[in-house]
């Protein structure tokens, strides 16, 4: 299982801090989340996504492979201060 930690807008959408979900890639994980929580996949794609502390833009984006025990962070796309 993959641990998904939710922040910002993602926490509002799912209304929880943390979810456990299956998925062999980021894309599959987001699809599973969309299906399970009745969300649109394209809405979940907009979040900043970190796999084990590394932004997926520095990995293989949505094709990034996931393994059991990986930790995903989903952050709001913007922040300000």
């Amino acid at each position: 299982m993959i641990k998904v930690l939710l922040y910002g807008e993602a926490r509002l959408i799912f209304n929880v801090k943390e979810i456990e979900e299956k998925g062999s890639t980021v894309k599959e994980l987001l699809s599973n989340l969309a299906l399970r929580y009745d969300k649109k996949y394209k809405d979940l794609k907009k979040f900043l996504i970190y796999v084990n502390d590394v932004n997926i833009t520095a990995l293989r984006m949505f094709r990034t492979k996931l393994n059991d025990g990986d930790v995903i962070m989903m952050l709001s796309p913007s922040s300000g201060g």
Partner: protein
Amino acid sequence: MATKYKSYWGKVVKVNLTTKEVTDYEISDKDRLLYLGGKCIAAKIIYDNIKSKIDPLSEENMIVISTSPLNAVGAPCSSRFNTSTISPLTGYYTSSNCGGNFGLSLKRAGIDALIITGKAKDKTYLVITNNGIEFKDATPYWGMKTQEVQEAIPDKGAKFVIGPAGENLVRYACVISGERASGRGGVGAVFGSKNLKGLVAFGMKSPEVYNPKKFHKNNILWTKRLRTHPTTGKILPELGTASLVTPMHAKNLLATNNYRTGKFEHFDDVSGETLRDEYLVRNDGCTTCPIRCARVVTVDGKSVKGPEVETIGLFGPNIRNNNMQAILDWNYYMDDLGLDTISCGNTISWAMEANEKGFWKNGLEFGKIDNITQTLDDIAHRKGIGNELAEGSKRLSEKYGGKEFAMNVKGMELAAYEPRGAVGQGLGYAVANRGGCHLNGGYLVVLEGLGLSVNPYTPKGKAAFCVMFQDLMEACSAGGNCLFTTYAFFPSILIAKPNSWITRTVNKVFTSFGGIVTVLLKNPRIAAIHLPHMLPHTKALKYATGMYMDLGKFLQIGERGYNLERLIDVNLGVSKKDDELPLRLTTELQIATNKDSKVPLDVLRAKYYKVRGWDENGIPTDKLLKKLKIEK
């Protein structure tokens, strides 16, 4: 005094507290055109009057409280005013921006700027109305905290007051208007040194604008833009500036354990999300603000202003505290005492490390929070170790050792952004005119992870963008706007879709545009355009004042103001030797496996001086001053 430009009164008043004289001070229309208002016009006044080193807490120092053309005329996010002086913390120029109502009321009282000189014989406060300025006895109010005194002073109007910290000359004392602070640089101590408890302003007038119809139309567009931009329309109202805690942790930018790392394992306990879900009463905003980023929280059963991200960072991760309610309590208490939360938190974290390493045994420890409230009280009243902490981290580290981890520049303590995770931000801290300020330094962290995700470790292009952002924010502030209005400078699509190919491409190539930005900065006539969706400020200023204004002119006002501030500092002794970071940030890797995770300051600073048109020692050249029409 009169002015041909609209949205000014053409009235600057000088008050001599020693003699109780009130006189008009001449500002020409040429200066209005060159410096606009706010911090830039204040820099002009201080530059003309203070030419060499002074004791900031002596009678020789002056305070300039300046409004701007967009104040009190109905533009969005335009209640900001500046308090400028020579800082007792740094010995150099400081200008502190505040969103309280005092600036609006000062302008409505018919005054563009107020200059305060001398020293009152007795404890004094001033009442400013359309009928003039009255000197009143502040003896009954001396010793009161900032909220108490604002309620106790019977005069009608917006208040701007100091608390015990300012009275006791704490070098980072602030001045409070409502619940908003002129926080940085110790302006409160300068008030205290002049026996000045505060100011009250009341007025009912607003100046005319040049083209009301077009001005109003531009304001509607501007407000709409702010309400629909993902940062100002969504995340800031939703989570406030505390929204940054989580991404700062994710991107190694969250100063932790006195800037030893950029991550805090308990960050979510003090995040914007936790603040919203467990502590928020409602959000709030300055007058005229459609963003409403302020947090209202509960302290001792009262609804009060909550902390900004800098306070959360410095009283949370940086002292290894994950108790959010404690941060809310301390934040309110510091405002009430009249302490700058950034310098205060940073000085305490230095003291904790100094204690840990045996430089100075003081009882303060990382993660131990039961003695913090008492320490804050002791600082404001200069009791026990508080008397020493009131001097700030620079003076303490000179006395006890530990300069390499005293996180200040020019004596002003850094904000909560750990610059080894964003080296352009590190450059900004180093060269900022008022010292280690995240905003005066250009706030490049917004490019390097907290907006866009440009490579945070490369020095490439950073100097040019640092200059541009400094100038942009300087001009924005001179106009009277909140700096958050500049977020709209970033197209929504880049902010809202960080994983799109467009955003990723922009992030990759962004630093390559440093050369183009440099050309633009050196030739502002190229930018004789308006960008109404990205930067509505230029049209607003044009329609409000009747001045010719475009993007190039706007940026050049910022450039002129920034250079004039530098010249004030140069007159007071600033040079390259002062544009330095604490050694921890330039010599120690933040992440052992990342050889780029330290600030390459020598490279960045040399390039910055070149883009600025300063010589190798960081002094603006005569050629530059001539171009900017600054008389030496």
